[in-house]
């Protein structure tokens, strides 16, 4: 076989993918230097959450992606188009991005309507109407940003971002300036974004709850370095997503509604390796529902037919046990079926009494399930 007939290895990359290799040293106003070093690939499907404590470089990363900051060395390509490399630096206004800042992502001297139209081709009337309706901002169009509440401003900013048909959407903690009620109000709009846009969506947050609700992929930043990345289900199950309290540890399951039990207002949620009963979320058959099960809400037992109020009792295998002698509790990593992973937080004493060890067979009793979307 001649060499040139060898099948070429294609540049394996889904369309729309963002590839970012950034090395950026910046002087900080308070003195000292901050270094961002990162090599990441962000897919065009689903939301990618950039997670980390404040000062970990999340916002700096977004600013580099947007071209608002210029890293000394970087290679950025979006859908195969080079935005920055050794020879080129494409300025922000040519990058076709949507950027929602923490607050004030709008031009203060223009009405909401003129913010939506600013710098765009007029004549995309149908698009405008769609975006306005999707975000429910019809009644806000003639107001100025200062007359809008924080949540309303963010909705207008999201509409603007959708309208610009971005090749990359950047969300810099868009919920952080909002109170709890407004957060809940805006979340569904964010959850709908991947269905509306087929470009990478990068959402910066320091809230584990937002990660659990929104993320398909997660990139964990710490002191300017990417310390973990992967799908949200994998990162949460392997506890590589640093959450503040052990009580917040848990897993996220992607499920499909496979049946309803109208008598008891329950629904059957099908995950990769089985089904479980959840309170009916009002989603039709086949609809996707994301569940979160906290480690503290799973208890373990040997008996299959315990007389108790537990609805979901899943046969599981212990994979490993995280424990240290100076704490009362331990974290049991479980596998259900082939690939579904759960976390259970039980006392070390219980773990010993049940005789838990890697590959023990056990029943995971799920006390409660949170329906995220």
């Amino acid at each position, binding site marked *: 076989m001649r060499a040139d007939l060898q099948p070429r290895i294609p540049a394996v990359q889904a369309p729309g993918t963002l590839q970012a290799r950034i090395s950026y040293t910046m002087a900080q106003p308070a003195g000292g230097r901050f270094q961002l070093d990162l090599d990441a690939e962000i897919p065009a499907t689903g939301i990618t959450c950039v997670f980390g404590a404040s000062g970990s470089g999340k916002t700096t990363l977004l600013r580099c992606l947007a*071209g608002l900051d210029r890293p000394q060395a970087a290679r950025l390509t979006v859908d195969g188009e080079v935005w920055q490399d050794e020879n080129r630096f494409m300025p922000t*206004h*040519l990058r076709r991005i949507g950027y929602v800042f923490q607050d004030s992502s709008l031009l203060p001297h223009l009405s909401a309507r003129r913010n939506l139209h600013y710098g765009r081709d007029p004549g995309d009337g149908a698009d405008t109407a769609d975006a306005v309706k999707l975000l429910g901002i019809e009644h806000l169009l003639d107001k100025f940003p200062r007359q809008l509440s924080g949540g309303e401003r963010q909705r207008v900013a999201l509409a603007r971002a959708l309208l610009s048909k971005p090749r990359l959407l950047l969300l810099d903690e868009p919920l952080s300036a909002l109170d709890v009620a407004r957060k809940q109000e805006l979340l569904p709009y964010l959850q709908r974004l991947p269905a509306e846009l087929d470009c990478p969506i990068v959402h910066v947050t320091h809230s584990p709850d937002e990660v659990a609700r929104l993320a398909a992929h997660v990139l964990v930043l710490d002191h300017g370095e990417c310390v973990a990345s992967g799908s949200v289900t994998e990162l949460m199950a392997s506890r590589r997503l640093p959450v503040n309290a052990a009580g917040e540890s848990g897993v996220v399951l992607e499920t499909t509604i496979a049946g309803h039990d109208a008598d008891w207002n329950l629904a059957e949620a099908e995950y990769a390796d089985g089904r479980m009963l959840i309170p009916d979320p009002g989603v039709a058959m086949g609809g996707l529902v994301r569940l979160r099960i906290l480690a503290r809400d799973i208890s373990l037992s040997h008996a299959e037919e315990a007389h108790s109020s537990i609805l979901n009792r899943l046969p599981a295998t212990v994979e490993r046990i995280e424990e240290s002698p100076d704490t009362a509790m331990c974290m049991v990593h479980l596998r259900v079926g082939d690939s579904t992973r759960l976390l259970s937080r039980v006392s070390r004493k219980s773990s010993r009494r049940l005789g838990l060890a890697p590959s023990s067979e056990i029943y995971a009793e799920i006390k409660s399930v949170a329906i995220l979307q």
Partner: protein
Amino acid sequence: MFSPDNLQAIWLTLRLATTATLLLLLIGTPLAWWLARTHSWLRGPVAAIVALPLVLPPTVLGFYLLLALAPAGPIGQLTGALGLGSLAFTFEGLVIGSILYSLPFVVQPIQNAFHAMGDGPLEVAATFGAGPWQRFFTVAIPLARSGFISGSILGFAHTVGEFGVVLMIGGNIPGETRVVSVQIYEQVEALQFGEAHWLAGSMVVFSFLVLLVVYGSIGRHAIPGMRFGN
């Protein structure tokens, strides 16, 4: 009410102030933008030069301008080479003097307004796809509106109130360089107190109204550049 001489002086003063203010906006806007945004070491020296007329006696400024505008001076040689002759004791010379003298009153309010605006709106506009020129004209200038208003008013009013520089480089030529402030001086010298009253009183009313507009209408917002007294 006003004698023909006085009317001529008023008209000349208004022409001078209008011309100087328009030119100052043209020169001052890019200068203010640069001062508000540059990180160059030249920022300090340039800002100090712009502010010099605030502290220098007008006679000092006028003295050096007179030397520069004279046929042998650097500006005089240039204008001579261009066939314009010396600009000393001409209306054009007064315009140049007024521009220098009133420069800080126009530049500082605009510079403060550009500064107060911050980077945020310009970055938002960039993410909206606006290039540098579009950002400047559709974001920076509208947002610095109050700075432009107070800069124009202060520049205009300050040029109207100019005396020392005019006397040094303009002399006292009716219809050419005899502005209101010089006319009042002339009338007082000639003991024509009645005539002088009309002009001086008008200046007091005019200045009060100007400041009322500045402090009254824009008073809701902080007025950039109204921090120095004069």
